[in-house]
């Protein structure tokens, strides 16, 4: 058993070149980041649409969006990921078959982005809705009084004006999306957590690899925090210092 204790600090296991597993871990991290960025962006798009729909849409649209955000926020991500992973791609395939195309190939990456995106979409709907509501009505009225079209008002006034209110929430969402990618391990997608488990299982150096992966996630979070702080400082230029 002494051999095992020694392998705890067998740093060569982390070497970038095989037989070290560092390269695999980094590739996993890259996959995680790709999914996080993709899912987050998709979520933002869905969220923007959702927020405007919830605020200005018709009654039916509002209710449907309410159902969407309620369901997603009440059911564990792990369950949603399983449901969406199977049902989502299944439905898409059936749809494609129904309209005449054959079943499409959905890569693990696309499926991952889709799943994280749907989950994130519900959260960002709520974050953005709150932020839009925080924009004083008078600012939008002023834009109307100057003859802006609804599209222009949204682009030129509503969206930029709500940004300072949305950024804390959106940054939290980003951090959540980086961590939620770990859940895709349960569907066998080789992001950082799964490759860590594979590496750990193959080498039996569980502690070493889990700690290494933890450090990578933490680094991602810390780097994100720095960037978020820069963005926030920029977006809040127009806001008076809190009293």
């Amino acid at each position, binding site marked *: 058993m002494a051999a095992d204790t020694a392998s705890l600090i067998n740093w060569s296991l982390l070497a970038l070149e095989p037989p070290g597993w560092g390269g695999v871990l980094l590739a996993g991290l890259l996959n995680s980041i790709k999914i996080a960025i993709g899912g987050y962006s998709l979520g933002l798009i869905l969220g923007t649409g959702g927020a405007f729909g919830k605020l200005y849409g018709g009654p039916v649209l509002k209710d449907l969006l309410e159902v969407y955000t309620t369901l997603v926020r009440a059911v564990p991500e792990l369950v949603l990921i399983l449901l969406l992973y199977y049902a989502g791609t299944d439905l898409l395939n059936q749809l494609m078959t129904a309209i005449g195309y054959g079943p499409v190939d959905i890569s693990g990456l696309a499926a991952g982005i889709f799943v994280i995106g749907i989950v994130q979409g519900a959260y960002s709907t709520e974050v953005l809705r709150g932020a839009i509501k925080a924009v004083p009505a008078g600012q939008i009225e*002023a834009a109307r009084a100057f003859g802006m079209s609804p599209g222009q008002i949204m682009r030129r006034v509503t969206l930029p004006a709500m940004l300072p209110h949305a950024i804390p929430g959106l940054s939290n969402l980003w951090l959540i999306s980086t961590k939620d990618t770990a859940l895709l391990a349960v569907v066998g997608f080789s992001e950082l957590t799964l490759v860590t488990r594979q590496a750990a299982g193959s080498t039996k150096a569980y502690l070493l690899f889990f700690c290494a992966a933890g450090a990578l996630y933490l680094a991602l979070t810390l780097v994100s925090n720095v960037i978020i702080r820069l963005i926030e400082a920029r977006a809040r230029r127009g806001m008076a210092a809190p009293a």
Partner: protein
Amino acid sequence: MTVRAEAIAVENLHKRFGPLEVLKGVSLTAHEGDVIAIIGGSGSGKSTFLRCINMLELPSAGTVTIHGETIAMKKDGHGGMMPADRKQVQRIRSRLGMVFQNFNLWQHMTILQNVIEAPVHVLGVPKAEAVERAEALLRRVGLYEKRDAFPAFLSGGQQQRAAIARALAVQPHVMLFDEPTSALDPELVGEVLTVIGDLAKEKRTMILVTHEMKFARNVANHIVFLANGVIEEQGPPEEIFGAPKSERLKKFISSIH
């Protein structure tokens, strides 16, 4: 008085909010160069009337004509009316400069950006030209130094002057003011009134809702007293303030002082 062109003509305007009829048929004509002050008690419908002119509130009945062009309206199916042509409304709005009680400057833009926003993005003025004109306007209202500041960092009076510059930037046919000084601390009111007074001297067409009677008297050439959703009395300031006819107006004027 009739040789000047009509800038705004409002015909028999009605507005109801649910069961409450706020405007019960108001007609008003402003010619080029007119400065019309609308006075009246709180809740008498002054703001509503002003907001109906540029369709921020949709009138229930009646027509609004700006520079000879009547805003086409159609029934909206709920017993109210809506603009027949949204593009037309946007075009007409861009020719009316509105100044709000709460300034409503866009907080995420600097003062200069606020002023060039509508010229550039609504009227399509080239940016360089818009900046040049905006700087001239800001100099005029005494805010040239503050052009790169964000609104939140200005005093109320400065913000309101910036809002006036923003409204002037679209070269409006008519300026509309809704109680431009009532959200200001007393010591800041003067600077804003001076700017508006200067505009009046230039014979710019203006309709302004105000509680500042002395100012209305000095600046306007026509006073409209609104009460209970109708024009109770109107006329030149000397008559309205000097020799009010209706009981309501008499009471209103005495209550002010």
